[in-house]
C-alpha cells in the first residue's frame, strides 16, 4: 500500500500506524451534560462502511503527521489524504 502524503507524496504504508475512523477527531466535551453517553458512542461505535472510509494514519516512521486518508475499504483505492490538523481546524471530520 502507498499513502499519498499531502506534503511528501506517495509513501510506503509501512511507515504509518493506523488508528481508525476519522470520526475520532470529533471528541465530545467531557464537561458537557450527557458526556458519558456521547463518549460511549465516540469510543466504541463505528460506521465501519464497506466503501469510502475517512480514517486516521500516523506517519510514525516519517514526519509524525497525522493524516486523514479517504480510502475505499472494498478495493483499498485511496482517493486522497489531508493533514488531520487542517481537517480539525476546518471543523473536524464530517
Amino acid at each position, binding site marked *: 500500500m502507498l499513502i499519498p502524503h499531502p506534503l511528501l507524496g506517495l509513501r510506503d504504508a509501512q511507515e504509518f500506524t*493506523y488508528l481508525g475512523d476519522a470520526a475520532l477527531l470529533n471528541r465530545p466535551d467531557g464537561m458537557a451534560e450527557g458526556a458519558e453517553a456521547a463518549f460511549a*458512542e465516540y469510543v466504541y461505535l463505528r460506521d465501519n462502511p464497506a466503501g469510502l472510509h475517512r480514517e486516521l494514519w500516523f506517519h510514525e516512521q516519517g514526519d509524525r503527521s497525522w493524516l486523514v486518508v479517504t480510502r475505499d475499504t472494498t478495493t483499498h483505492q485511496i482517493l486522497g489524504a489531508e493533514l488531520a490538523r487542517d481537517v480539525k481546524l476546518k471543523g473536524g471530520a464530517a
Partner: protein
Amino acid sequence: MHFSGLRVIREALTGHKGWKPLWRNPEPQPAYDYIIVGGGGHGLATAYYLAKAFGRARIAVLEKSWLGSGNVGRNTTIIRSNYLLPGNEPFYEFSMKLWEGLEQEFNFNAMVSQRGILNLCHTDAQRDAYRRRGNAMLLAGADAELLDREGVRAMAPFLNFDNARFPIKGGLLQRRAGTARHDGVAWGYARGADMQGVDLIQNCEVTGLRIKAGRVCGVETTRGPIAAGKVGVAVAGASSRVMAMAGMRLPIESHVLQAFVTEGLKPTIPGVITFGAGHFYVSQSDKGGLVFGGDIDGYNSYAQRGNLPVIEDVTEGGMALMPMIGRARLLRVWGGAIDMSMDGSPIIDRTPVEGLYLNAGWCYGGFKATPASGYAFAHLLATGRPHETAAAYRLDRFARGHVIDEKGVGAQPNLH
C-alpha cells in the same frame, strides 16, 4: 445416511453408487420460525443446535454464497480454550468440550486433533501473565501446564533456542487444544442441520431486514422476501453491513487477517506453536502443509486480501522462531474479512429490535468458538435467555464498562 468405515468399504466395493447428497438444495419457503443469516460455521452450528438440542423446527439458514464460505472456510483451524478472563474462559472451555465429542455427535469426521497448543514466553512478565492465565484455565475446569525452557525443548527441539533475539523462557501448554479440519466442521454441521430438517439455502443474500413496530418480521433476499419469527445474524466480517439494515452501529471494525500455508511436507511440527515475541503461530495440516498466521494487516478492509509487508513480517517471525522452515515454500496466502470488536471479545446478544439477535465480533478467533457459539446462540434464540457461558457477551457492555479485554489494549480493534 450414516457414515462409517463399513459404509465406506461397502460403497467402495459397489462403485460408490449409494452416496447421497450431503444436504438438500431446498427452495426457500415463504416463512420460517427461525432464520439464521449466514451459512458460515457459526450460522450452521446455530441451526444445528436449534433443531437438535432445542427441538425447534421451521428453520432456515440463508447464505449469500456457498455453505461454509464464511471465515470457517479460511482460517488456521486452531481450537483452544486458553483464555484468561472469566467472561471468556468458561465459554471457550464449553466449546472445547463440544469439540471433543463433535464428530461422534454429528457423525462426520472433522478431524479434531488434540495435539496441543504451546504459547511461548520470552520474558518474566510474560511468564507471570501466562501463569495467571493458566491458573484461570484450571480454575474454570480446563487443562493447562506451564513449561520451562527445557520442557519446551523436549516438545519442540527445532525451535531457535541458541541464537534468538528473544530467548524462549518457557511456555503455556494446553494439551487438549489443537486443530480441526475447518471445512469438515462446516460440512458436518450443515449435514447435521439438513438431517434435522433445516433448510440450507445457498446463493441467497439478505438485502434487507423487515422491521415493524420495533419487531423483526422477516428478511428481504435476492430470492424474494421471507417471513420469520426470529432472525439470528451470524455474518462475522460483514456484521456492520447487515446490522446497518436495522439502523444499528456496532462496536466493530472489519479488518483483514491473512493466513498462509506452505507446500506439503512430511511431519515436521507436533502441535500448534505460538511465538510470544513476534506475530507468528503455526501448525501442520494432515496433508503436510505448514499452516501459519500472524497479525492482522491493521486497517479497515472488506477486500479479503492483504499486503506484502504482513506476509514478510509473519514469515520473518516464523524464521526467527524456527529457522529450519526456511527451505519450505509458501504455497498460498489468503485473507479474510473479520469482525474486530472494540475489546477483542465477541457479542452474542439480543438487539434493540425485538426478535433480532446478533452473533458477531469474533475477531481472529471465531473458528474455535464454532460449537459453543452455535450452541449459545441457539440457546438465546430458543429461550430468549443467554447461555450461562456466554452471558458476558452483551452489546451494552461497552457503554456500561464491562468490557472483556484479554489483551488490555483498549478500544482499538487493530491492537486486539
